[in-house]
């Protein structure tokens, strides 16, 4: 919030109008922007200011946390947009670049951390970090386009961001409610202790599944629409004058794609481990379906997800007012130019998407196949699990959250602080078959170690290194000259 103090310090009055019309020297503007941004970002939980988020959410009761991620993050976004586009309406492109970069980092790291969680609500909380990242990507792009004075594109990406904000409110609320009802009936937050709930609470399962599909950005639900719009915005970057960002932005698209895919993986895990398979816990649960009001809430937001997914043009027409106010143009003309069914952000030739038809198409084909295959009543025999002819399997053999995320953990391992220890108590006789094996795994978010331990340590370490430039390895020396070149080149450009 210090940003505002600078604002109001540099000119009088807290009213937005006053700020809007005030002339600010550039340095002050920059300082103000970044302070304000930091303030809001901390609120929204942008990496590396996100650490409070996964701590706070699980602590709070479900409805509160759904409100938190639903509303509070939104206010933060509102603040950022308001300050940048409305108060400081003229800014250099690298502000946008900074926002974009932060967004990308938050998105990727957020989803990765989420993937490592086995506490349902922490997982969702980390996903809020990811989604904030995606929203910021949209906003950052909008800023870049605006600073290069391409209002149409700016409007497009701004709307992508805002649309995702709305979507996030919907499906994240849905997911938190689902998680809440699961918590309520099982009294568990640890996924490792769950499983097979789909048989006990079909409604919750189905609705939670809708939430998963939407947040994993799969058509025809809403998550996909905003992500698709963001991709389109990315792909329009070649029309930027600056060669460097023209080159860099598509990389961002790749990162966004990575985020989407990882999110899908993450929610396969979340849903699969929680609702599918066998019950993993020790005490046998007497779980029952969630009560009606809870279900009603979930159903409504689920419907909202679907609606936002298949009728984007309608909602975008509403949003255009904002876009017009901030960037000076609307995309509605082009967006719904080909009827309410087709979403064509820039032009018909460029790209088009119709959630409606995708939805209906899938529906039709599925029904057709189903009916065709059921003209002849095929009896369904229920049998014990075959499992490749594997003998006497039990529920402890199935994959759980930790084992599911293991491959990805191994690939991106260097991003986490992982402590793995296996202790086995060997039984006398044959060493090969120990009596029991204890496997303990702890995964910590690196940023604690990176930022929140006092930086003094780092500087101290450096001071000791002063004399040690000359440490013998020729590679190091080569690195010196390499880095020197890079720095000088940067200095001169």
């Amino acid at each position, binding site marked *: 919030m210090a940003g505002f103090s600078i604002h109001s310090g540099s000119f009088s009055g807290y009213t937005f109008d006053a700020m809007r019309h005030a002339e600010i020297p550039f340095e002050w503007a920059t300082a103000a922007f970044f302070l304000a941004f930091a303030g809001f970002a901390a609120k929204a939980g942008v990496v590396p200011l996100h650490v409070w988020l996964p701590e706070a959410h699980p602590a709070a009761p479900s409805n509160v946390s759904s409100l938190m991620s639903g509303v509070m993050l939104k206010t933060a976004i509102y603040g950022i947009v308001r300050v940048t586009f409305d108060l400081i309406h003229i800014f250099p492109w690298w502000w946008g670049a900074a926002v974009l970069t932060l967004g990308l980092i938050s998105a990727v790291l957020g989803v990765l951390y989420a993937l490592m969680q086995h506490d349902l609500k922490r997982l969702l909380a980390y996903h809020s970090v990811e989604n904030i990242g995606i929203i910021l990507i949209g906003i950052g792009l909008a800023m870049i386009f605006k600073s290069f004075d391409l209002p149409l594109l700016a409007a497009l990406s701004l709307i992508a961001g805002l649309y995702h904000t709305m979507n996030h409110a919907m499906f994240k609320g849905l997911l938190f409610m689902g998680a809440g009802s699961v918590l309520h009936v099982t009294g568990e937050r640890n996924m490792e202790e769950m499983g097979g709930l789909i048989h006990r609470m079909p409604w919750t399962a189905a609705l939670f599944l809708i939430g998963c599909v939407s947040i994993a950005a799969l058509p025809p639900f809403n998550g996909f629409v905003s992500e698709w719009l963001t991709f389109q915005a990315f*792909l329009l970057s070649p029309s930027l004058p600056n060669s460097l960002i023209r080159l860099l932005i598509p990389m961002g698209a790749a990162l966004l794609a990575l985020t989407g895919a990882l999110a899908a993986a993450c929610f396969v895990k979340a849903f699969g481990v929680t609702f599918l398979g066998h019950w993993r816990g020790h005490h046998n649960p007497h779980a029952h379906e969630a009560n009606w009001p809870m279900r009603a809430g979930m159903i409504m937001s689920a419907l909202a997800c679907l609606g936002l997914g298949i009728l984007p043009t309608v909602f975008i027409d509403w949003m255009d007012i904002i876009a017009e106010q901030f960037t000076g143009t609307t995309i509605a003309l082009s967006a719904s130019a080909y009827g309410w069914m087709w979403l064509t952000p820039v032009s018909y030739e460029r790209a088009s998407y119709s959630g409606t038809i*995708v939805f209906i198409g899938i529906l039709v084909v599925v029904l057709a196949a189903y009916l065709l295959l059921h003209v002849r009543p095929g009896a369904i025999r229920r049998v014990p699990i075959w499992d490749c002819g594997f003998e006497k399997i039990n529920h402890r053999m*199935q994959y759980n959250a930790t084992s599911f995320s293991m491959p990805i953990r191994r690939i991106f391992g260097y991003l986490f602080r992982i402590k793995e220890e296996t202790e086995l108590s060997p039984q006398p006789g044959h060493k090969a078959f120990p009596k029991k094996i204890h496997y303990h795994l702890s995964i910590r978010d690196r940023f604690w170690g990176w930022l929140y331990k006092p930086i003094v340590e780092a500087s101290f370490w450096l001071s000791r290194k002063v004399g040690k430039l000359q440490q013998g390895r020729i590679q190091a020396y080569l690195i010196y000259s390499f880095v020197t070149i890079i720095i000088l080149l940067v200095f001169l450009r």
Partner: protein
Amino acid sequence: MSVIPYLIELLQVIILLALAPAFIGWVRMLKCWMQGRSSAGLFQPYRDLSKLFAKDVVLAENASWIFRFTPYLVFGTAVLAGGIIPILSVDLPLAPTADVIVIVALFAIARFFTALAGMDIGTAFGGMGSSREMMIASLAEPAMLMAIFTVSLTNKSTSLSQIVHVIYSGQTLLRPSLAFAFLAFVLIALAETGRIPVDNPATHLELTMVHEAMILEYSGRHLALVEWASMMKLFLFVMLGIAAYAPWGIAARGSFTAVPLALAFMIFKLGAVGVGIVLIETGLAKMRLFRLTEFLGAAFLLATLGMLSFFILD
């Protein structure tokens, strides 16, 4: 608005359904020849499918509705994608429904639910299969999109028909960017359709299988649908590649006169691609799971190089 495009649309879907098994059969046949075995013939897949359809379904006790719903969904997405990708003609009524990104997403849906189905029964193999599948997918998808972005950047559109149009109109002779992107696409297609060296479609060996592990518990019509869908997926990836990189022969206008020619072209290309796949599969061995990062990393590198050289050189 003439009716012909709709007919072509229909024809195209039918061809997709009809030819996908034949293509698999062709690949298997070539493979047998390469390895000096006597092949089961071009039409074996049809026989398999019809047999499976005839059989009854045997379902595990604790299978939920997801398990039963998945095959239909997978099948549905494949068919829908088949209606969108220009196989015979560019001028399709469904074409504007979805661009490349959406198509990738459609395959993603199928994968999502297959993975869930894999976890549904709660066996070790199922979980293993879905976990690996999602891992591979999460690495393959960025590379895939990069490869496709390169194309859509060079052609200024993400809608496939439009891409084909542009390639027809413009002269794109010897573009390094497209070459790179194409290489990347090949690698990714291998990964996505679960061929060697990423996955071995023919194995049921516990530790090597990925896709098979997820659908282990299926039987009867469910299995038939899943199998058929995966055949179509391979077919569609080939078509996607053709449309994006070598569309010559696809009819530019919706008229029946052009269709037979397009069909001939398509079958010829399919044959060629089949040979390519077989060469790759007999040339390489299946990789360890964690060597895949390098494999897909290479794909990503190629795609990115493609994009860079689009900016730098073209």
